[in-house]
């Protein structure tokens, strides 16, 4: 029961991060290996605000998220647009964007090492017990769950009920056809990439309220987000949410039953199972 609850609480934050990556990969077609670094950068923002300014990390959302949006917008416009132009087909763009974002992830790690040093960082925020079904859980985890679920819900509504959301979904399905239907594909791709980065940074803030992070841990979260996106099926919001909950549960189960140091191994195990049995995603259809 405890494993179930903690896993679900963790899963909501993962869902948020995976949604960020889904926007970047599913819509803007950029396989972003620097995604985890954006998350850690968001977490650093919250950490800095909390320790230096004594402000709640959730207030940090108000300016870390817009800053991440701007930064990702800039990255897409200056660094990734040339690759999109250079690529002759989707496969080439994939190779180029993987290489470029892999390089960027090292640049980000380097900058964060310079700015904050290589130490682990954590802070104590709302570390009070909160009772669910008779057992106590960290209040910070519960708050993170609520915040992540709220943002996920907003994103879902935004994607499904607004005109911009519909344009984004159209680009995700087929950029060429979306262009023919009068959608400004480059603009929508940029927007989706920037939004994805902002959502990821927001997820980082929530994680930082209950996890200990350091400058070079980003790759672990990139992995988790990628695994969730693949498990759920690229571009499938419902699949991503369920996949995040599964990953959250699996990790919590391994951490509490075997060893907390093996969470990534748990994620890999899920990954291998997905690759072997459902490479098209949980709800995807087998290509005919």
């Amino acid at each position, binding site marked *: 029961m405890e494993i179930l609850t903690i896993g679900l609480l963790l899963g909501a934050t993962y869902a948020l991060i995976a949604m960020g990556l889904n926007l970047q990969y599913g819509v803007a077609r950029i396989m972003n290996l620097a995604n985890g670094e954006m998350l850690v950068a968001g977490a650093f923002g919250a950490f800095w605000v909390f320790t230096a300014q004594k402000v709640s990390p959730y207030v940090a959302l108000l300016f870390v998220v817009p800053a991440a949006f701007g930064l990702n917008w800039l990255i897409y416009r200056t660094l990734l647009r040339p690759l999109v132009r250079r690529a002759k087909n989707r496969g080439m763009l994939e190779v180029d964007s993987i290489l470029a974002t892999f390089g960027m992830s*090292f640049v980000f790690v380097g900058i964060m090492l*310079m700015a904050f040093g290589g130490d682990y960082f954590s802070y104590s925020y709302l570390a009070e017990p909160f009772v669910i079904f008779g057992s106590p859980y960290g209040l910070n985890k519960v708050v993170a769950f609520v915040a992540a679920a709220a943002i996920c819900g907003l994103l879902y509504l935004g994607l499904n009920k607004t005109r911009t959301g519909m344009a984004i979904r159209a680009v995700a399905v087929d950029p060429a056809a979306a262009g023919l239907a009068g959608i400004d594909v480059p603009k929508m791709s940029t927007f989706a990439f920037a939004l994805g980065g902002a959502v990821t940074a927001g997820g980082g803030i929530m994680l930082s309220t209950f996890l200990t992070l350091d400058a070079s841990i980003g*790759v672990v979260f990139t992995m988790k987000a990628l695994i969730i996106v693949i498990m759920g099926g690229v571009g499938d919001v419902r699949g991503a949410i369920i996949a995040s909950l599964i990953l959250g549960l699996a990790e919590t189960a391994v951490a509490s039953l075997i060893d907390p140091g093996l969470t990534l191994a748990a994620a890999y195990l899920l990954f291998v199972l997905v690759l072997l049995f459902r490479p098209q995603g949980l709800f995807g259809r087998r290509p005919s």
Partner: protein
Amino acid sequence: MTRREIRNTILAVIAFAILPWLPFLKDSGYLMSLAIPIAMYTVLATSWALFSGPTHYISLATAAFYGVGAYVVAGGIGVVPYAVLVLLAGVAGAILAALVGLATLRLSGVYFVIFTLGLAEMVRQLVTWVQNNFTGSRGLYVLTDITERIIYWELLVLAALVYLIGWIVNRSRLGFAMRIIGNDELVAAHVGIHSARAKVILFVISGIFAAVVGAVMAPRFTYIEPSLAFSPELSFQVVIMALLGGVHRLWGPLVGVIPFTLLWEVIAASFPTQTVLLLGVAFLLIVYFIPQGVVGLIESLMRRAGIGRGSGDG
């Protein structure tokens, strides 16, 4: 053999005839400290390019194989003869590569890249867990009487092997199949190439080399711990060097390895805290400005000047 091949073979024979004598030069200590990394990265980058060059499947897992190789030696030293351990390291590398290949290479390239991205970190977690729970100590000592000189010679043998195998593969049906797969996987499937099997075989070869290099280098560390053996920077440097040189020629990575290793010695000595940042910047510069590598750049310049006679396979 074409004239280009005869020329390359003669150059290679001369190089491998001279290089083994380097340790006998006077004051060869400093020379060795440069020659060993150069030889090591030559083997790693060339074997990396054997697989990733023709297929464009970027492997980010060199450190995982290297670390496994180093750990096989560290775990068995004093119990099993060193030569056997090096062989075992190769076997371990082959098994790991086959498992990764079988899980991912049947599918599109993205799954493979993602899988390799976190592989070193996951193996590191597993090794750390095993050590914490079953052996009690985090690190392992590798105490042998193997000198720098012997390591250098072992690496030279590996380099000769990797070139030989690369040359054979390029001339074989397998190499031809790989180039078709790299150009268009659908076409490859339609002309009857068993593309998953071809990819797995080549990835296994490249994994064996990385693991054996790890095993050869282990005595040089004397003390091995997970964060050292599975360092992500190693995977990254191998990719950088191979791309810098150019991956469409067998000797392309070598052109990247020598200048980069020398440059890195200087950078690591002068800016020890900013190495990660500088690595990333160097990588971005290569991806954006010389995507075909130095060799590709020179060849296209030569072609433009009218000197080159098309592109054969060398």
